[in-house]
């Protein structure tokens, strides 16, 4: 092994201990029964109505929060990419700043804001408006997830929009394209790779989310992440927890290449 490769040593040790070994363990527990015999029973458990419903809810929440993030982030990223760097830098900083605070603290803070006797309702009451019952609903989970994941959607789109050559946009205008056409035919297709990485960064963690659902959704809404977590921590059924994790992983593995493919071939022709 040459010296440069040796530099990867610390990471290889880390990866072996904390990525590869755990994956093998999940595979082992997921695919074996109590006596150690091979079984598909844990995988099939996804068909259980409670588990299926949880997976469906997770998918809905992940798709919903991804869509909301996209709708908020794209126009903002577009405006920021065209503003001068001093203004856009400040706004980007405002987005990154909360990420320096612990994730749990931020979600707990959000709970304080959204609670029935929380800050938001206090403000509404002050203006004589009716209270909102936001906590322990799908809405609360969505708000939490959008709040948490918005920067991951914003930054890749902002970066790719900044990288688009101004001359290319000028060339399109020069060839007769008005503002809307320039956006539809040039800016949007060229920004799709950024949109795709944003979508992946939000959708994939989103589908296995359980902490936000726990805190903001209470025990009313069960996501697949909650089910898995409970199998490990409460029911102590590592087999079932691992089996459901494998099913979830399958979803992620299937969606990744799909998005990559969409990204490469879709870059333009789809919108042409």
């Amino acid at each position: 092994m040459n010296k440069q490769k040796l530099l990867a040593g610390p990471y290889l040790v880390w990866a072996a201990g904390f990525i590869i070994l755990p994956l093998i363990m999940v595979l082992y527990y997921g695919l074996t029964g109590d006596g150690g015999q091979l079984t598909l029973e844990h995988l099939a458990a996804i068909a259980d109505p409670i588990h299926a419903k949880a997976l469906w809810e997770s998918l809905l929440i992940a798709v919903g929060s991804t869509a909301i993030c996209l709708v908020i982030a794209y126009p903002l990223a577009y405006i920021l990419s065209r503003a001068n760097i001093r203004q856009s830098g400040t706004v980007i900083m405002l987005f990154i700043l909360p990420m320096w605070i612990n994730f749990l603290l931020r979600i707990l803070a959000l709970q304080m804001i959204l609670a029935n006797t929380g800050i938001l309702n206090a403000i509404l009451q002050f203006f004589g408006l009716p209270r909102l019952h936001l906590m322990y609903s799908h809405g609360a989970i969505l708000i939490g997830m959008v709040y948490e994941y918005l920067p991951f959607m914003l930054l890749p789109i902002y970066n790719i929009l900044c990288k688009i050559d101004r001359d290319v946009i000028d060339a399109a205008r020069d060839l007769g394209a008005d503002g809307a056409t320039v956006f539809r035919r040039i800016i949007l297709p060229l920004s799709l790779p950024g949109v795709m990485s944003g979508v992946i960064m939000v959708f994939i963690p989103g589908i296995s989310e359980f902490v936000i659902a726990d805190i903001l959704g209470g025990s009313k809404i069960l996501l697949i992440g909650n089910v898995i977590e409970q199998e490990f921590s409460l029911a102590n059924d590592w087999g079932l927890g691992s089996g459901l994790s494998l099913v979830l992983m399958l979803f992620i593995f299937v969606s990744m290449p799909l998005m990559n493919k969409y990204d490469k071939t879709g870059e333009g022709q789809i919108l042409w």
Partner: protein
Amino acid sequence: MSKKPLIDLVHISKAFDGETVLDDLSLSIRENEFLTLLGPSGCGKTTTLRILGGFVTPDEGRVIFDGEDITMLPPNKRNLNTVFQKYALFPHMNIAENIAFGLKISGKSDAYIRDKISYALKLVNLEGYEKRNPTSLSGGQQQRIAIARAIVNEPKVLLLDEPLGALDLKLRQEMQYELIRLKNELGITFIYVTHDQEEALTMSDTVVVMNQGYIQQMGTPEDIYNEPENAFVADFIGDSNIIDGIMLRDELVEILGVRFPCVDTGFPKNLPVDVVIRPEDVILGDPGKGLLDGVVSHLIFKGVHYEMEVQAGGFEWLVQSTVAHPVGTPVSINVIPFNIQIMNKPASEDEKAVALDE
């Protein structure tokens, strides 16, 4: 070439962040002309082109195109097309889609577009490249595609912003001939921006030398080279010896204490002037045989000629000759009257700053 003006820039001024880039610039461009805006970076030539293209709105002044005021018209409504320095091809489209872009927007039929694409590719010698991606092409090929993409829209004027700037020397020279051929075949007006004086002299019908937002001189390449109007033009176009002189009377100028016969007339007597002598016009001979004696202080071989520096009369003369005189050789300097160019000294300190700053 018709004498009819196609474009008139009328008293154009433009400042960016309080810094004046163009100051009261007026310029008239005729139909079918190959006009080059030439100058060092920051002289305002690119801003002038961007004002023509519609990407920059002037602070003052008007742009008249074919008798119509287009000062406020956005780029997509103007009947002229631009070729950008870095090609600016659309990276997510193939060559055919790139060329078709303008035609599709103007709603041309598929058959028409197909014909136009093959015509344009033939014109730029890139037949069969329809399905290729821009990134798979060399710089020169990409620039040809950028030209093809612009001309299929049949603009009255093609704006070219240093289109050969990123190409290597050999390719640049080839493309110069290519552009002249294209211009003649298309019969449209080319407005070309460059900082390369050789490019400007080779291709243009008219050269506009600019510096610091002002037009320094406008004329045919021969005029600009042979009859520079001020020290800046003389210095920027080719190499020059620029020497202080006094115009003693018509057809006689005193340089470095020696009287040189010249052909210029009409200057007041004893007027201080700038005298320009091109290095290839300085004739070296045996000592005592010329107007001025000196000693060779530097000798460099340049390929087509030798370049020498000669110390004579307290001035360092730049000389180009096919005959080498070794360093230390005593020589005489002679210049035939026709090759001495007399220019007025800059009238004000402002103009002087313009002239000396490059």
